[in-house]
């Protein structure tokens, strides 16, 4: 139970609560037994379907009942429905899960059912070609109908829903994973630039939202790979953004983790030196900043690993050593890590 306050109740209060619950408990158990019995007998009726709706409203985590609900649709309802009817049923399923998600935003099974619904939306039937002889005139091409029309309409609505979910909890990883699923599978692909703009909006409203920084790193990687963004130019703009965030709150680790991604594992000497200088300037202003020191150690170690012949390594090792010793007192929880790093550094570059 996440985040539910413990309440110490008197035996009398507990007994009263139990008594009040009794009726609820009996009807829940009865409903469960009825449904599981119907499931066993492969009852694919509309009545059984309605019972699952009732039960899932009380307990959306009952995965067996979600499975049964889908079985009823696939074996009972869909075979006797037109494509239009199937589409309508799935729209109503999506609507039900929207309501459920508002109450239970972190229940895997609800998100899962949503994906199944989306993937099950049928193609729009094509109008039959008009018969030439019966009409006694030249055949007319039937108006073209987009076969994926229903799917496109449904997937487009999903983005709206997922944004509502991320407004309510900007770190909900279910919602972010679902968002990426929609972005990659949608029949109407959204430009990466729009997704980048979304992460900008999320980050600007809260620098601490690492989920948005993470998404940004993935979007940029795709944009660089596809040539949609210029690597050098966009990186420069990112360094400006990150530097601004660092100065705003030097204790926010989201920004520092993202900065580490931006610098990468194989930075040029010039880039490393520039970033080290910028962080050093911030450290001069905030002499106790753990993240400034920690990052300086990381980037100075990169200097030694990648550009040793181009730097005064004795000086850099000395800097790292001094910073690591300072970190042990500024950030004592991780003192063993800093001690180990210093030991390794001295052993590697002795």
């Amino acid at each position: 139970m996440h985040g539910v306050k413990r309440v110490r109740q008197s035996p009398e209060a507990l007994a009263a609560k139990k008594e009040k619950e009794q009726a609820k408990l009996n009807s829940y158990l009865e409903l469960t037994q009825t449904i599981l019995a119907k499931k066993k007998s492969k009852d694919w009726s509309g009545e059984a379907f309605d019972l699952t709706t009732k039960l899932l409203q009380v307990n959306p985590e009952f995965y067996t009942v979600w499975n049964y609900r889908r079985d009823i649709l696939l074996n009972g309802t869909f075979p006797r429905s037109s494509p239009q009817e199937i589409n309508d049923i799935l729209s109503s399923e999506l609507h039900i899960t929207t309501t459920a998600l508002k109450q239970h935003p972190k229940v895997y099974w609800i998100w899962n059912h949503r994906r199944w619904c989306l993937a099950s939306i049928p193609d729009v039937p094509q109008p039959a070609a008009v018969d030439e002889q019966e009409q006694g005139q030249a055949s007319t091409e039937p108006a073209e109908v987009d076969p994926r029309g229903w799917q496109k309409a449904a997937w487009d609505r999903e983005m709206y829903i997922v944004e509502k979910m991320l407004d309510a909890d900007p770190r909900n990883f279910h919602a972010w994973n679902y968002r990426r699923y929609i972005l990659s599978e949608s029949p109407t692909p959204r430009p990466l630039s729009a997704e980048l703009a979304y992460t900008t909006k999320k980050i600007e409203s809260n620098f601490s939202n690492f989920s948005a920084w993470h998404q940004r790193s993935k979007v940029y990687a795709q944009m660089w790979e596809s040539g949609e963004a210029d690597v050098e130019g966009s990186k420069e703009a990112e360094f400006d953004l990150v530097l601004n965030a660092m100065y705003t709150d030097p204790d926010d680790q989201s920004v520092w983790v993202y900065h580490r991604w931006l610098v990468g594992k194989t930075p040029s000497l010039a880039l490393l030196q520039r970033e080290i200088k910028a962080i050093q300037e911030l450290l001069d202003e905030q002499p106790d900043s753990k993240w400034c020191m920690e990052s300086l150690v990381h980037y100075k170690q990169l200097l030694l690993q990648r550009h040793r012949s181009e730097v005064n390594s004795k000086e850099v090792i000395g800097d790292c050593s001094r910073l690591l010793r300072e970190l042990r007192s500024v950030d004592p929880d991780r003192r063993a890590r800093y001690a180990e790093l210093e030991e390794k550094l001295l052993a590697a570059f002795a």
Partner: protein
Amino acid sequence: MASASSPQQTLLIPRHVQYIKDLGQSSNELGYHLTSHLRMNAIYWGLTALCMMGHKDALDREDLISYVKSCWDEEAGGFGAHRDHDAHLLSTLSAVQILVILDALDEIDVDRVVSFILSLQHPSGVFAGDRYGETDTRLLYTAVNALSLLGRLSDLDIEKTAGYIVKCRNFDGGFGAVMGAESHAGQVFVCCAALAIMDKLDEVDEDSLAWWLAERQLPNGGLNGRPEKLEDVCYSFWVLSALAILEKVDWIDAEKLTAFILSAQDIEGGGIADRPGDEVDVFHTIFGIAGLSILGYPGLGDLDPVYCMPAELIESLGLRKRWRGLPRRAAP
């Protein structure tokens, strides 16, 4: 009680044992039935916690075995979370773990369980939870762990399976639930443990990951699961198990984390909560105790962080992998 050992600073083993025993007796409560989809997992959590506390026999062996068998889904060939619930990978792993702890694997059709698990692997290497199920690295670990406990890891395509995990690795060294997902301590545990079982730990970027894991500790001693999130007792296990696999448990402050876990105990009713003052549950109880075991808390048994089961048992099965917790401290 003497102030040197006030309840908040001590693991209240008898209370927790009683709390776990009582869980099975609460079938007249609505909450008990609303969580029936977690029953098999809950039994595994409770039983493992009891093993750590040296009270394995607090639950009746025959009752447990017959309960597990009553959850067999004949159609699918796996175990459901409760009687008449559909087979699912999560409950199937818990069933296998319970039976391994009770030395009762001979009670089930291992071949069918293995087929059920393998049937849920997708071409990408990831596993689904059931025939309609979602896929993620949590379910992949569940499959790998169960196959290993059943002695049938050789039936698995290791390259394909480990390949999927590698695709979920992020620049911070952590792992996400699916490709493209943010690093999360729960996923870091399942991915590291699955790689450990498959002898593929060389796929881990150890320096980055150990750094990221050490940064999960907050000033109050508790651990969070992602940057800039709140602490929660369950991360004591997700983060510590991965640190133990990387042999870096000392990279966080053990004393402060120990105090945080102990402060989340319900000192009257037993059990451990997500954080101090909250309602307890068996999930946070096992993961709090598991964390304490890895931290070398006195009087607890050793927990194998790869399987989240008693270390002695895993060792006796010949499944022990490389990992290191803190040395067990002597009782004060």
